């Protein structure tokens, strides 16, 4: 897979990546919440 210049910039944009960090944490929280964890 080749990463375009635009994509590379996006991958290191601090504001976008901070937003993605929050989204990824929300995904993990949902996964932990809905999985069984018995």
């Amino acid at each position: 897979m080749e990463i375009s210049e635009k994509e590379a910039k996006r991958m290191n944009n601090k504001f976008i990546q901070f937003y993605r960090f929050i989204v990824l944490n929300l995904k993990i929280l949902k996964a932990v919440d809905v999985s069984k964890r018995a």
Partner: protein
Amino acid sequence: MLVPQFLGQPFKYIGKDGEDITSKIANPAGFILVDGIYGLEYSALAANPDAWPAVYQNKNYQNIFAGGIAFAPPGPISQPHKTPNGTVIAAAPPRTGMVSGIIGRIIAKNIIDLIKKGRMTHHERMSEMAAACIASMGDSLWDGSAATIMMYPVVPDERKYPNEHGRDLFVTHMEMGLAGAWMKRMIHTTFMHKLRARIGWKIIPE
């Protein structure tokens, strides 16, 4: 990711009276048989997520448990394929990392249960389990990067999630970027905190 087939250790298991009990404990690849339903065709296995083991205990020998990479999965987690020269390509379920930690917790709690109550009260199939994997591609918190992969459930459950993938599509996701490097750092720090059994370690996921 394509990797060679994993194999268990080629032990020969001998019973008390000297008989060979290998077939009661391990499958031909050397993985330990547990409480899953084995021998199903892929289509039957995909339609029945309950065929996946729940307590990871050997049915013949109740004092034997196998977690993580050691237990024998009932089959692949997606449609197996064959190359023109006959090599089988089958997606084995990921059983290292987070999945190992979760199964280890279930087994440990069930052993405690067996000692204290005489019965097991914890169970979690891989079709009920969430997992995350972060592959680092540079650990700098300023210009590092990592691929973050999340799946729920690890083994598709088409009954609960009747979409093309059999998974929760909000959780199931893969992306690359600096946020992954931050996630990796967060997971390293919280994992070490959990490992040292410091305050709140029990609520930190594996």
